[in-house]
């Protein structure tokens, strides 16, 4: 497998007994994230057995079904609790959690902030498409103010969460934001997130044309990708803009990178010292 790349590499990691093409709509970014995840794991030289992908419920949750690692499809909002158990029992396993914005920040919001606070050594990929995709397009905690959704036909009136600020405040060790348009940078962030100790979060801006785009004047999936290309910009560029210009942009890059010891590390140290009678 060593010298494989591109589509050939991805095909190598897919579960060949699953139905393809996958279930995601035409132009859904979730497929691109799946590719990026595969390249990142391959790039780190991990074997399939060393990796466990834990997914929640939502279109994003389907990702785990297609890829030939240890995988668990869990309940809505609880992927991180399952992942915490797996990591505590198998601290050498690379546990990667895949969640939607609704899965991670609405029903699973409490688990997300506490996973960050505990600094459990898992890597969370938050596929932020600004909407509940699977259940028909209700607004989610990241739906921008003013955006149209099935449950905000006159425009969303609530404020939205900024995943990066939330995770920074909750003290995650690694916090980054990328997009499915800027894929090579995304590969790098996922690799860094996996290699970094403690809780890592990579928020990934990804389009859902079916539920979000159509209601918000993006006529085609391509329009959604053009929008991501133009709005998601590097933190460095973002910081040079005026406040007014910043309002319509989303900064991307690595926001936090620390090596505070992880929960499982501390736990195994404590267990060893108890057994050693120290």
């Amino acid at each position, binding site marked *: 497998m060593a010298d494989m790349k591109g589509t*050939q590499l991805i095909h190598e990691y897919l579960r060949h007994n699953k139905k393809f093409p996958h*279930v995601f*709509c035409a132009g859904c970014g979730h497929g691109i994230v799946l590719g990026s995840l595969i390249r990142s794991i391959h790039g780190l030289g991990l074997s399939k057995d060393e990796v466990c992908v834990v997914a929640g419920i939502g279109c994003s949750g389907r990702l785990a079904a297609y890829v030939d690692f240890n995988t668990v499809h869990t309940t809505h909002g609880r992927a991180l609790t399952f992942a915490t158990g797996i990591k505590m029992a198998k601290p050498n396993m690379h546990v990667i959690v895949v969640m939607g914005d609704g899965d991670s920040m609405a029903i699973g919001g409490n688990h997300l902030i506490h996973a960050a606070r505990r600094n459990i050594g898992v890597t969370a990929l938050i596929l932020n498409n600004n909407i509940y995709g699977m259940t028909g397009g209700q607004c989610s905690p990241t739906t921008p103010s003013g955006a149209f959704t099935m449950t905000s036909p006159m425009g969303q009136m609530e404020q939205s969460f900024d995943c990066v600020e939330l995770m920074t405040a909750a003290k995650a060790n690694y916090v980054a934001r990328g997009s*499915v348009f800027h894929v090579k940078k995304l590969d790098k962030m996922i690799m860094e997130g996996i290699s970094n100790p403690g809780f890592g979060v990579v928020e990934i801006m990804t389009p859902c044309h*079916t539920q979000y785009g159509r209601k918000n004047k993006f006529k085609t999936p391509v329009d959604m*990708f053009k929008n991501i290309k133009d709005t998601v910009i590097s933190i460095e560029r973002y910081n040079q803009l005026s406040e007014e210009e910043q309002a319509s942009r989303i900064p991307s890059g690595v926001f936090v990178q620390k090596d505070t010891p992880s929960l499982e590390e501390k736990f195994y140290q404590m267990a060893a010292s108890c057994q050693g009678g120290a």
Partner: protein
Amino acid sequence: MSVKSKGNSTVTIFPDWCKGCGICAAFCPGKVMELNDQGKAVVVKEEECISCGFCELHCPDFAIMVRPKADDEIPAVCRAVLEKAARKTDMPADGSAAEKNSSDMEKG
């Protein structure tokens, strides 16, 4: 990545997997692909391909492969995957996956 000059690559699109999202056609610097009247991507100007890799990295359905011209065989793993794919094809390519998801795969 292979040599970034024109005309050294073969671009293959697996029609059973392509859902016609149009990303490859819209962003390819050489305008190598177009959508045909069935809404599938087809290669129209292979000689303009500069092997930038954009289409392979961004096709959400892993339906494009760019290879050096010298490799005339499709790799065995891809052939196997594609043959399996040819045996089914009731996937809606029009963005109705969400409805399909909530109706027969999972009661949200």
